[in-house]
C-alpha cells in the first residue's frame, strides 16, 4: 500500500492503482472525459493533468500508476491553465445547441466547463460541420458534431459487449464515430453507450426529446427484468416513469445493464395499470375501491374454507414479488387458512437457465430464487399437476393468483387465465390490466397491486444475493402490496394514515380542471 500526497494530504491507496483512481477514492475533484472506471484506459482527452514532484512535465492521471512517496497536485496554476485550454480545444467544433440537446443538464462538458473552464473562447475559425441525427441502429441516434471523440462507446463495444460495431473514422478534425457499413449498432447492451457518452452525441431513441432531465427525479431500485437483479436508478416525475439507468454494483452488474431491462419502466405507468378494484365476470365489471374488493374477496376466501375445508382454496404465485410479501402470504395460507395448496407459476421453464454471458438471463422474473426458497422454508411441495387435476375435478373452489406485474414476459397469460377460471371464483392480484379476464366465466375479483418502484422489500437474485430496495414513487394510490392485501383478507385493517396520495398530474386546481364547462 503506497503512501502518496494528493494536494498536500497524505493518503494510502492500493498497490497498482492509477492516480485518477486514487483521486476518485479520496474524493478529490479531477477533470476527465475519456476515463471510465468500467473501461480500459485510452488517455485521449488529456484533461486529467496532474503535477508530480520530480517530473519535468505534467502527466495524465488516468495512465500513471502511483508509486511510494509520490507528491501529486492538481490545484496549481499550471494545471488549471492546462485543463482550461485543453477544454477550449475540446469545444472548438462542439456546437452550442445545448437547448435542444438531450444531454443538457447531465452533460460532462457543461459540468466541467463550469468547474474547470470558464474561459473566453479565442477561436476565430468556423466550426467544422459533420453529420447530425445519424441513425446508428434500433435504439441509438448519433450526432457527430457534438462528439468529442473520447472513444468510450468504441471501447464499450470492444471490451464489454464484444460486438465491435462502433469505430472512429477519418482523420484530424474530420474524425467521426460510426458503424461499419451495413452493420447497425444492435446488441442488447447498446444503450450503455448512451449512458457513458459524456456529451449528447449518442442519445436514446426511446427517451429522446420526451423530457428535459432537470424535470426528473431519481430513485434507486432493482431491475425486475430478469433474475440477475441489476442495480438501477429510475427517473420519474409526476406523470410516471421515463427511463431506467444502471447503478454501479461491482458484485452484480458492474456499471452496465441490458436494453431489455431498460424497458421495464413501461408497465409501471398509469395507462397500463389496474387503478381500482373490479368485481364481476365475463367482462361485466363493477368498479369498486381496491379496499372493498380486497375485503369482499377475503370474506369469500374465509367462507369457502369454513364451508368446504382448507383444500378448497389454492394460491398461485409468480416470481415477481418480494421475499417479505411471499413470507406474509404463505404464512396466511398455511397458518390462518391451513391450506398447503400453494403453486409456483413458471412462465418459461425451458429458458430459465439461459444466460448470455454478461448480464441478461432467460429467467425473466426478479425473484424466482426468493419464491423457491420461501416455498422450501414452508415445506410446500405441491406440484403444478396437482393444481391441474384438482381444478378439473372441481375440488378447488377459489383460486388466488398473484399474477405477474410485468405481463410481457409471461407469454402464456391468456392460456393460464382460462385454466385458472375453471374454478368457481378467482381472486386476481396484479398490477396491470389483463384483457383475457373479460372472457372467463369464473366470478373474479381484480385487486390492484403495487409495482417494484412503489414498494419496499427485497429480491433474491440468481446468485442468492438478497438485495433490498425502497419506495421510489407512487403511480397508483389505491394499489396494495401483497402483505397489505393479506391484512385485508384476514379481516384486519390497514393503517390508513400511511397510505400514499395519488400523483394526479401537475395541475389539480378545480377551476382549471373544469375549465370550459361554464
Amino acid at each position, binding site marked *: 500500500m503506497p503512501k502518496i500526497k494528493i494536494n498536500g494530504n497524505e493518503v494510502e491507496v492500493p498497490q497498482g492503482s492509477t492516480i485518477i483512481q486514487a483521486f476518485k477514492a479520496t474524493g478529490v475533484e479531477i477533470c476527465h472525459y475519456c476515463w471510465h472506471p468500467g473501461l480500459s484506459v485510452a488517455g485521449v482527452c488529456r484533461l486529467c493533468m496532474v503535477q508530480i514532484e520530480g517530473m519535468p512535465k505534467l502527466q495524465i492521471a488516468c495512465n500513471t500508476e502511483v508509486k511510494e512517496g509520490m507528491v501529486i497536485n492538481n490545484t496549481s496554476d499550471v494545471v488549471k491553465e492546462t485543463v482550461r485550454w485543453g477544454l477550449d480545444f475540446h469545444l472548438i467544433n462542439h456546437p452550442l445547441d445545448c437547448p*435542444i440537446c438531450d444531454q443538457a443538464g447531465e452533460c460532462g462538458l457543461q459540468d466541467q466547463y463550469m468547474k474547470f473552464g470558464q474561459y473566453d473562447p479565442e477561436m476565430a475559425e468556423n*466550426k467544422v460541420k459533420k453529420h447530425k*441525427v445519424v441513425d446508428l441502429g434500433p435504439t441509438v441516434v448519433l450526432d457527430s458534431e457534438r462528439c468529442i471523440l473520447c472513444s468510450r462507446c468504441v471501447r464499450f463495444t470492444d471490451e464489454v459487449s464484444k460486438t465491435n460495431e462502433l469505430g472512429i473514422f477519418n482523420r484530424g478534425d474530420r474524425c467521426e464515430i460510426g458503424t461499419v457499413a451495413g452493420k447497425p449498432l444492435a446488441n442488447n447492451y447498446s444503450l450503455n453507450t448512451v449512458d457513458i457518452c459524456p456529451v449528447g452525441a449518442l442519445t436514446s431513441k426511446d427517451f*429522446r426529446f420526451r423530457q*428535459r432531465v432537470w424535470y426528473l427525479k431519481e430513485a434507486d431500485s432493482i431491475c425486475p427484468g430478469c433474475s440477475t437483479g441489476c442495480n438501477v436508478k429510475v427517473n420519474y416525475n409526476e406523470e410516471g416513469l421515463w427511463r431506467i439507468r444502471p447503478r454501479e454494483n461491482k458484485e452484480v452488474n458492474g456499471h452496465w445493464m441490458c436494453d431489455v431491462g431498460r424497458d421495464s419502466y413501461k408497465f409501471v405507468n398509469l395507462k397500463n395499470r389496474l387503478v381500482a378494484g373490479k368485481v364481476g365476470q365475463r367482462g361485466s365489471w363493477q368498479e369498486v375501491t381496491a379496499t372493498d374488493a380486497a375485503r369482499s374477496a377475503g370474506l369469500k376466501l374465509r367462507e369457502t374454507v369454513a364451508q368446504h375445508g382448507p383444500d378448497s382454496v389454492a394460491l398461485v404465485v409468480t416470481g415477481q414479488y418480494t421475499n417479505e410479501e411471499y413470507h406474509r402470504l404463505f404464512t396466511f395460507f398455511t397458518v390462518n387458512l391451513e391450506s398447503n395448496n400453494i403453486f409456483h407459476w413458471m412462465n418459461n421453464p425451458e429458458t430459465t437457465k439461459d444466460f448470455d454471458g454478461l448480464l441478461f438471463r432467460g429467467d425473466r422474473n426478479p425473484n424466482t430464487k426468493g419464491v423457491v426458497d420461501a416455498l422450501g422454508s414452508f415445506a410446500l411441495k405441491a406440484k403444478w399437476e396437482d393444481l391441474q387435476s384438482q381444478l378439473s375435478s372441481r375440488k378447488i373452489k377459489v383460486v388466488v393468483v398473484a399474477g405477474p406485474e410485468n405481463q410481457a414476459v409471461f407469454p402464456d397469460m391468456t392460456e393460464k387465465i382460462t385454466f385458472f377460471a375453471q374454478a368457481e371464483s378467482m381472486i386476481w392480484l396484479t398490477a396491470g390490466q389483463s384483457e383475457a379476464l373479460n372472457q372467463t366465466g369464473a366470478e373474479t375479483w381484480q385487486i390492484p397491486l403495487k409495482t417494484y418502484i412503489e414498494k419496499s422489500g427485497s429480491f433474491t437474485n440468481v446468485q442468492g444475493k438478497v438485495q433490498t430496495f425502497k419506495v421510489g414513487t407512487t403511480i397508483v394510490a389505491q394499489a396494495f402490496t401483497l402483505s397489505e392485501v393479506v391484512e385485508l383478507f384476514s379481516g384486519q385493517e390497514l393503517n390508513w394514515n400511511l397510505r400514499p396520495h395519488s400523483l394526479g398530474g*401537475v395541475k389539480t386546481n378545480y377551476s*382549471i380542471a373544469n*375549465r*370550459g*364547462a361554464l
Partner: protein
Amino acid sequence: MSLVKRPTASAEWFLPGILAGMWFTLRKMVFNIFHQSKMETLNYPEQKYEYGPRFKGNHVLTVKKDGSIRCTACMLCATNCPAQCIKITAAESTDPTVEKYPIAYEIDVLRCVFCGFCEEACPVDAIRMGPEWQTAALNGSKFTYDIQQLAYRPQLKGGIVSVLDDHERHGAGI
C-alpha cells in the same frame, strides 16, 4: 397587536372636503364639454389605446422566413415560468435541417402573470410578448392558447418573423 386609527377632530369636518371634490368634478365636466379634443380619458371600447411594442401583453410565437414555427422546444421558457403555465410537447422533425420542434405549445393565459421571463429565457427569439392586451373570451376553455393562436392569429397577419435565422447563423460559422 392591532392598531385602531381613531378619526381626528379635523376629519369630522367632512363637508368642505366633499364640496371641494364636487367642485373639481364640475369644473372638469364643464371644461370637457367645451374642449373635447383635450379630454384625458378615452371612449372605450370605441376608442382604444395602443401600447408600445415593449408592452408585455399577449404572447407571440415567432416564425421562420418560410412561415414554420421558430421554437425549438428547448423548454427553457417552461422551466423559467414562475406560474408554470407553459406546456410543450417536443417531437422529432421530418425536416432534415430541424432536429426538434414543438408539436404542441400551450400557454394557460389565466395562470400567466405576464412577467416576461419566457421572453428572457428564450435563446432563439421564438417567444415574445406583444402589445395586445385585450384577452376577453366567452368561454374558459378559450384561454388555453395553442400554436395556432400564438403564432398565426389574424392580428399577426401571417406571423412575426424571428430575428434569429439558422441558415444565417450556420453561414457565419456558429
